């Protein structure tokens, strides 16, 4: 590595900084403002540049990589349209707190503000969807800015940071200096929880009769699964998880309740409704979890641990806020409770009753293929060991219900923003990060079309992802809402007449493709796909067109409004 006295140009500094941040992959696309960077890149051997086919794809790949590995995902795109194409991916990473550093080229400083060719005010555009962003105006500021960006993206609540680099800054030269430390006056996240608050929590939990752990993505991003497992098992407290929290606690453990909320399990939602102490860890009381705020966990003393103070008391007023890192909180709580909570058996058996009353089930019908079966089968054949990526919609909710997640960093899904088109690129990014586990993508036929161009990327780099296309020829989740709440007016959700032949499309991209129309062919196709590692493989599962995801708590409804099945849609429970 160059010593700090060497004179380098902006683009050389850029790569020097990435090396020092241990970057393995850049997901990028070249363009006019970045010509100097790509000139330097030509001779860079130790950082691999992955050429995407659309800048949105780069951002989702970077996020998939980040979520699978815990390391920040890196995006490199040109100015103007290159930059604006990253907006959805950045917003997605912001909502789901994924660490990401996005580098955008910019027109020369002297032209900024002049409506120059391929100019967009990307710093202005992304201000509300980044943790922070920077416009570098002087090459001397480039190294420290990159250092700060990585620090911001990965510390505290993770998130995306953007650096806009004008062309002249990348061309200019200066002495390269990599700062040993980084100090940002306005960014001092509270990592360690206040011990008095933890003791207060321990006191309340010790007296609880019906305690419940409600854990979210924060447990995954702070790598606190071990601490969670130790605490929950020692205290015998059941654990319900958010969509992003799945895998934080092993799904096959008797204390695992699966997911809560709109499409959560019946017993999870009943437990929330009846618990007397709710311990929320790294979760943010999202509206998809709470439904109607007034009736959420009405009897519970609520303890809320989150690293971001703005999450506390935002949606739900809690009795005991504890700001800090989930890993620290759970470790401190374990230590603060040397004795076991007594007499939780009645509570656990009550939960068991709910579990038996409304289990998650489906019935296979002759000659038909149900999504639940496909997901269940993949779960069995991978023994819950895959990194599962989803797109957005019905298949995503069924994945949360029927795939048994046993490890953290096993589900990569667009939760907050709900970005259709996320799945395929995110799966590719995840596969760059994880080589020792299969990467499986569940994707609807609607969302698959939204970033289908990235199939080329997967083929080109021989990425062995298993693309399980849940093809019901409908925008299924919207269709479900239309049936339930919009007078069965199936407005623009039927894709049956317009969808392409996905097998032919995949083959045209150079991707192996299979088709499955019933349970037998599905089972075999899954087996074949899991065994194929030469590159991507797509299975077109022709599933039931009109199936719906249950249980379901209608938006803004209470647990008591939960719909359990289609035939008795107003079953009050």
């Amino acid at each position, binding site marked *: 590595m160059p010593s700090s006295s060497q004179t380098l140009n902006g683009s050389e500094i850029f790569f020097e900084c990435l090396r020092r941040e241990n970057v393995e992959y850049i997901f990028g696309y070249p363009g006019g403002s970045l010509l100097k960077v790509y000139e330097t890149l030509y001779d860079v051997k130790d950082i691999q540049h992955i050429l995407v086919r659309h800048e949105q794809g780069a951002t989702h790949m970077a996020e998939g990589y980040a979520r699978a590995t815990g390391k920040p995902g890196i995006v490199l795109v040109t100015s103007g349209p290159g930059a604006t194409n990253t907006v959805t991916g950045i917003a997605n990473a912001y909502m789901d707190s994924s660490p990401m550093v996005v580098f955008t080229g910019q027109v020369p400083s002297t032209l900024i503000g002049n409506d120059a060719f391929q100019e967009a005010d990307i*710093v*202005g555009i992304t*201000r*509300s969807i980044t*943790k*922070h962003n920077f*416009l570098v105006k002087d090459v001397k500021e480039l190294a420290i800015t990159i250092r700060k960006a990585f620090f*911001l993206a990965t510390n505290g609540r993770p998130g995306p940071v953007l650096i806009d680099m004008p062309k002249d800054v990348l061309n200019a030269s200066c002495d390269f200096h990599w700062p040993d430390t980084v100090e*940002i*006056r*306005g*960014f001092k996240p509270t990592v360690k929880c206040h011990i008095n608050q933890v003791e207060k929590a321990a006191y309340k939990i010790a007296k609880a009769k019906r305690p419940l752990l409600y854990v979210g993505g924060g447990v995954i991003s702070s790598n606190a699964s071990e601490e969670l497992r130790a605490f929950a098992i020692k205290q015998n407290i059941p654990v319900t998880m958010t969509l992003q929290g799945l895998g934080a606690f092993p799904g096959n453990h008797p204390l695992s309740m699966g997911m809560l909320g709109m499409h959560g399990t019946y017993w999870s939602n009943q437990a929330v409704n009846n618990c007397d102490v709710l311990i929320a860890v790294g979760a943010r009381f999202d509206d998809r979890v709470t439904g109607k705020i007034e009736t959420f966990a009405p009897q519970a003393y609520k303890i809320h641990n989150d690293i*971001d*103070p*703005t999450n*506390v*008391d*935002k949606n739900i*007023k809690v009795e005991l806020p504890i700001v800090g890192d989930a890993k620290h909180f759970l470790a401190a709580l374990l230590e603060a409770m040397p004795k076991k909570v007594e007499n939780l058996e009645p509570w656990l058996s009550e939960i068991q009753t709910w579990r038996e009353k409304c289990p998650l089930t489906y019935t296979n019908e002759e000659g038909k293929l149900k999504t639940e079966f496909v997901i269940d089968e993949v779960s069995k054949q991978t023994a819950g060991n895959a990194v599962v990526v989803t797109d957005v919609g019905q298949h995503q909710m069924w994945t949360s219900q029927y795939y048994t997640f046993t490890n953290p960093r096993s589900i990569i899904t667009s939760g907050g923003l709900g970005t259709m088109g996320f799945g395929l690129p995110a799966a590719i990014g995840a596969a760059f990060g994880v080589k020792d586990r299969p990467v499986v993508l569940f994707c609807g036929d609607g969302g698959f079309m939204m970033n289908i161009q990235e199939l080329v990327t997967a083929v080109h780099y021989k990425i062995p992802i298993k693309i399980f296309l849940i093809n019901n020829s409908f925008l299924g989740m919207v269709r479900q809402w239309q049936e339930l709440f919009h007078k069965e007016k199936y407005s623009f959700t039927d894709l049956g007449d317009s969808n392409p032949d996905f097998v032919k499309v995949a083959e045209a991209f150079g991707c192996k493709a299979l088709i499955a129309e019933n349970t037998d062919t599905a089972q075999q196709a899954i087996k074949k796909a899991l065994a194929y590692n030469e590159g991507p493989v797509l299975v077109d599962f022709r599933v039931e067109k009109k199936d719906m995801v249950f249980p379901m708590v209608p938006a803004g409804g209470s647990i008591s409004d939960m719909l359990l099945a289609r035939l008795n849609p107003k079953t009050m429970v």
Partner: protein
Amino acid sequence: MKHIISVLVENKFGTLNRVANMFSARGFNLASISIGETEDPEFSRMTIVTNGDDHIISQVVKQLNRLVDTIKVTDLTRQPHVERELLLMTMKLSKTQQHEIFELINVFKGKVVDIKQKSITIEVIGSPDKINTTIDIFKPYGIKELARSGAVAIHRGE
């Protein structure tokens, strides 16, 4: 309830935009915002006047703190503080009402900053309440144009 919040921020390009943008993105009320460099040119001080119940104000303070360019946020509302606003106002000037106008300027401890044949421009400094009253009282004399600075506020010293 009205709150007056003092925010010490990095004196950097785009900081005002970040703060104002956060208010609009989160649907918070923003009655006024004023900003100026402090004794240390690395920092600026913002005075923000906003409305909301305790829950909203606590979110406003937390969201302000969350911005990376924010150094310190202080809700001055319930603390001893001094709050001032500057009003510049041009009014019609007629021979018949001239005398009354000058009397009122004295009452409000205002200053005449410009005077022409048919118009007069005055400055008045005071709390936003006093500025509101000033405008109300002068309205009948014919206000041609006015500009308010928005409140600036500071802690009272020890």
